Each structure stands twice: as C-alpha cells, then as structure tokens.
C-alpha cells in the first residue's frame, strides 16, 4: 500500500576451495599453485597444533595456567596470518596463536603469557602487534585506533582484528566496525566463528543467519569463508586486506570453523555438547584437508610428515625448555611498568613491597616459610 520502495539490498557470499576431503573446487587461486607456499601453510598449522597439545599437557601437569587451545581452528589463524604483510598489525583475541606464531611471536612468549608472566606480551618479533585480549571483543576499538593511525599518517598498512562468534554480541565490536565504516579505515575484522562461546552455541548469540551480516549494520562489506579451508581463508582475507590497504575501507570476514576441544583447560565441554557433534566435525577439520590436497598433488609424503612431526616437537620442546628456565620476575616489576616513571607517591609502596619480599625470602631461607 502507499508507495513501498526497496531502498537497500544486501547479499552475503560464502567461499570454499577445498571440499572437506581435500578435493579442490576448481579453479583454485593462482597463489595456491606454488608448492612451497601451501607447504608453509601446512607446516604452520601442524606446528600450531603441536604447540597447543603441548601447552595443554603443561597445564595438566601444573606447569602452565589456563590455556585456550585452537584445535580444529588452525586454518583460520594461519590463513589470516599468512594473508597479512609484516608491516600490518595483528590485534588478536586469545585463540589466535596460529597467527601470532606465523607473525613471529615466539612459543616461549606465548607460554610465558599463559604461565602468568607479563614478559610474554613483550614480543621481540612483531613489536607493534597487540597482546592477547582477554575481555571479549574489547580489542576491536584498538584495531580501529591503529587503523586510524595508519590512515592519518598515509601509511599503506592494515589492522587485522580477530574476534570469536561470541564476541560479535559485544557492543564494542559493533561500535568499532561502525566507526571503521564511517572513516573507511584500513581494518579487517575476522570473525573466528567456531560455533561455541564456552557453552553457548552460535544460535544463542544471535538470530542473524550469518555473522558476516554484522557488517551490514556498519555499511561495510561482509562475507563468509569456509574456515577449515586455509586456501579460502588466506585468499579472502588477503583480498580484504589489500582492498583496505588501497583505501577501499574495512571488511568483515566470517570464517566458519569448529572448536574441536574444550573452551580452555578450565572447561569441560562434555557438560554441554553432544560427543556426536564433535565426532561429526572432525571430518571437516583443516589439517587433514590441506594434507589431502598436498598428497594428491604429489607434494607431500610420509617422510615429509615424519620430518615435520619431529621438527615441530623439537621446536616446541626448545620453547618449553626456555619457558621453564626463564628466570623469575622480580616482584617490584609490578611497579616498574605502571607508568613511564614511578610517581613519587608510589615510592613508599614499592619500598613496602621490597621489604615484604625481603622478609619472605629471609623466612624462606630460615626454613620456616
């Protein structure tokens, strides 16, 4: 009745290159014709998985704090890490070790962080990358700020922010994306959609059919990729990053994957999700999927796999060793990085702490600690 016009129309696309069994859906992107490139991605995924397993084991034996494994989600992290340029900045949540490792954060740093040592966030490698963000979604605005810095300085760099499916319910993520849209910031938001936010399934987070359509509210392009297909992730995230780099503004990429294990080592997923669901999802996981392609192309064999397994183990053990042998932090360090210079008003408290530590040390030495 009256006049009824359509004033806006949107479509959300979804991309996949590899079937769950690794069969390519031709044509594949040209970059994936290169053996070394694909093998590097494969290595990185296996390395991440090896690291995760070892970190969980460390936690189980009381040598590490709570840890969030990315089992089953390696293609998202590695794919987006590989899509970035070194000069871009990663603003990760707490489950993107695959991307962090790719970019040069060390395993020892990650272990220090999860082991309760602030030095783990003082990355020797990517100095501008942000540390892990624990408060869900709160880092989206940091990415917007970083992207704004790039834009203001006219630097061809991109801020890549990663959040989970659960994080899309946070106003922070919406506000940041909306602002990025207004200013056409060079920012790409990757939604690592692993179907669960601890015990809360995707459908309880939102009635939206896709998480990519969160972008529509911000007037920004959004799309889905198969997050267990590292070729799809790397391709589509790289396209979005390069669009952003060339001034075409932000984008959202929802990478659809699955969390194959507990939320963290503090969680017991069997309380809330059926084991059959998890079993079913193992058929879609990203590591075997890519290996199948490599093997089919004759690029990967049993020896390669054995070599890689050994390499990853050695890497991880060296990192664990360095972690376990890192000298203790002095207690007073809590004062020493609070401000650029310790305010005079805090000198007394710092001295109190020193005295308390000295007392404790003395009584420990005296044997009645």
């Amino acid at each position: 009745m009256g006049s009824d016009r359509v004033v806006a129309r949107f479509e959300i696309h979804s991309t996949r290159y590899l079937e769950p069994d690794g069969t390519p859906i031709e044509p594949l992107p040209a970059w994936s014709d290169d053996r070394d490139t694909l093998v590097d991605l494969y290595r990185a995924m296996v390395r991440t998985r090896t690291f995760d397993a070892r970190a969980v084991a460390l936690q189980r034996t009381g040598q590490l704090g709570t840890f969030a494994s990315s089992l089953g989600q390696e293609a998202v992290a590695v794919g987006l890490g590989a899509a970035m340029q070194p000069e871009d900045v990663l603003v990760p949540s707490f489950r993107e070790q695959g991307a962090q490792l790719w970019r040069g954060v060390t395993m020892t740093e990650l272990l220090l962080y999860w082991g309760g040592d602030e030095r783990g966030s003082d990355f020797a490698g990517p100095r501008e990358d942000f540390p892990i963000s624990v408060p869900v979604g709160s880092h989206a605005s940091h990415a917007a700020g970083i992207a704004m810095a790039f834009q203001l300085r006219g630097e061809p760099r991109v801020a890549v922010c990663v959040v989970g499916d659960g994080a899309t319910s946070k106003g922070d993520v919406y506000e940041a994306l909306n602002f990025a849209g207004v200013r056409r910031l060079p920012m790409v938001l990757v939604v690592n959609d692993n179907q669960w936010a601890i015990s809360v399934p995707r459908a309880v987070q939102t009635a939206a059919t896709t998480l990519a359509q969160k972008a529509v509210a911000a007037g920004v392009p959004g799309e889905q990729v198969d997050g267990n297909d590292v070729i799809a992730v790397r391709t589509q995230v790289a396209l979005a990053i390069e669009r952003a780099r060339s001034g075409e503004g932000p984008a959202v990429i929802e990478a659809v994957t699955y969390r194959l294990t507990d939320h963290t080592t503090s969680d017991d997923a069997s309380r809330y999700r059926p084991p059959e669901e998890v079993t079913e999802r193992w058929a879609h996981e990203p590591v075997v999927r890519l290996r199948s392609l490599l093997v089919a192309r004759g690029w990967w064999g049993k020896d390669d796999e054995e070599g890689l397994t050994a390499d990853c183990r050695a890497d991880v053990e060296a990192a664990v060793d360095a972690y376990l042998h890192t000298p203790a932090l002095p207690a007073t360090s809590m004062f020493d990085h609070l401000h650029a210079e310790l305010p005079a008003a805090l000198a007394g408290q710092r001295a109190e702490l020193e005295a308390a530590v000295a007392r404790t040390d003395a009584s420990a030495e005296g044997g009645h600690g």
Partner: protein
Amino acid sequence: MAELTMVEAIRTAMARAMADDPSVLVLGEDIGRDGGVFRATDGLLDRFGPDRVIDTPISEALFCGLAVGLGAQGFRPIVEFQFLGFLYPGLDQLINHASRLRNRTRGRLSCPTVVRSVWGGGIGAPEHHSEATEALMAHIPGLRVVLPSSPARAYGLLLAAIADPDPVVFLEPSRRYRSPREEVVDDGHPLPLDRCAVLRHGTDLTLVSWGATLGEVLEAADALAAEGVEAEVIDVSTVKPIDTGTILASVERTGRAVIVHEAARAGGIGAEIAAVLADEGLTSLLAPVARVTGYDTVIPLARLEHAYLPDVERILGAARRTMEYS
C-alpha cells in the same frame, strides 16, 4: 544440615529463593547447561527450566540493562558475571540506571536486582580474572555492595540481597569458593545487610576486613593471640553502606585498628573506614590506623599475584607495629 563450600552455599541460596519466589530469575553467560564457570548455577536449569535460568549472549552492558527492565516489571533478576573484570561494561547501567530508577521515578519503578560476580585473586587465573574493585560500586549512591566471607554468611547474605527491593552487588571471592567448608542450614533465613559481623572478640586491636582476606586476618589473629594480643576481627560484609557503629565501638575499646583489603589502596574501602575513624573515632585512637592492602599497581599475572595480595605476614607486621605504637 550440611557442610557446604561457598559456591554450594550460593547455589543453595539461589535455589531456595527461586523455589520461594517465582519472580526470581538467573541470567548470565554459561549459567544454563554448563552451570556457570564455577558451577554456582549447576542444576538450576534442570530444576527451574529455561524461562528462569537464562543463558545470555556475551553482552555485559546489556545484562545490567535487562535487569533494569525486568526489575521495573516486578521480576527479581540475579545477574551473574563470570569475573569482575568483565562487569565494567555494565557499570554505566549500574551507575546511570539501576541505582537511580527508584529515585528518578519517586518510587514508581524500582530495580530489585542482584548483580553477582566472581571477585578477587589468588587462584592463578588469567588476566582480568582477579579484580577486587568493590570500591567502584561502593561509591555509587543507591547501590549496596556485599562481600561474603564464608559459606554460611554467603548463604544468608545472598538471600537477603535477593529479598532486598533495591539493587545489590554481591561479590564472591573465588579463592574461597571451594574451601573451607562450613555448616549451612538451608532454612531460608537471611542475614542482615548493612551490618558488620564480629568474627572474633578481642580487646587489644581491631582487625577490619571483608571477603577473602578474612581468611588471612583470622590466621593472623591466631598468631597474635599466641603473642598475647587479643584481636577483634570484624567482617564488614556490606561495604556500602558501612555499619560504622560496630567498627567505632570496637575501636573505642581497643584503640587500635588495622584494615585489611585485597583491593588497591588508594580509594579502597579501607580509606572510607579509616576516614570515619579519623573523624568520629579520633579520640579513641591510640595508634595510627594502618591499612594492609593490594598495592596501587595492576594486579600481576599469576606468577606474582602472591606478592600483591595481603598475606598473613604483612597483616602481622602491621598489627605488631600498631600494637607497639605509643
């Protein structure tokens, strides 16, 4: 009667309140099938159903706003925050709305909600999981802030908080969740809000604390007793508004006070108590009012949190200095 842990006592209190009053709901992240990350709501979904035990999206600002709407409509929502570090996006709603709705509408609408949150350090949890920022909420007119120190007190105080017709922030020390156990009678009896509890009587020194640190304070009191110093131990329990009468009366007898809290010192609740002593209690004071607190630094990650948290040694040190003062 049963020996319960604090988290069991809290669950028992919620179940009791839900059974007695159909307007009581529980909202929060992972509180349904998962039973809450600390299992405080374990079993409530099965018992009371999905209309009363409601898993929410990760939208902390929203929760407190939902409580305002639900509260105005006569429900008594209990909102669970997994950790106090994740409540901050909800502060706007607590400050600007929940605490003000009754005053703003001259009593026409009100907000009988309980905002429960896991509180404090000491369990080696990740970043942002060890916050002790009760002072933020305590500064807000219209908010009550309650911290239980034991299973039985948690049971009674939570029942009182749920029954209270106005918003109450209820902060639960995670490092006391699982131990010690205490006998808790599930008789539906609330403990009074706005009232200190005297956990130990003494004549020489008043030790004032709340929540988790009372564990260390009681230990310190034992050690002091062995040294011949009888300390009175006061559990403030409701840190806003504070029952200053009990504290002043104790210090009038002992003349000496040490306040212990886990939060950062500057602007902590200890400051308010010391300020009341410096005003209304000045003539009683035989020694400076000492505060043993967290430092004015970010609480360190797990490796150093023990150095941040007030321990028995620090409490004893302050107590001895206070006793020696003349």
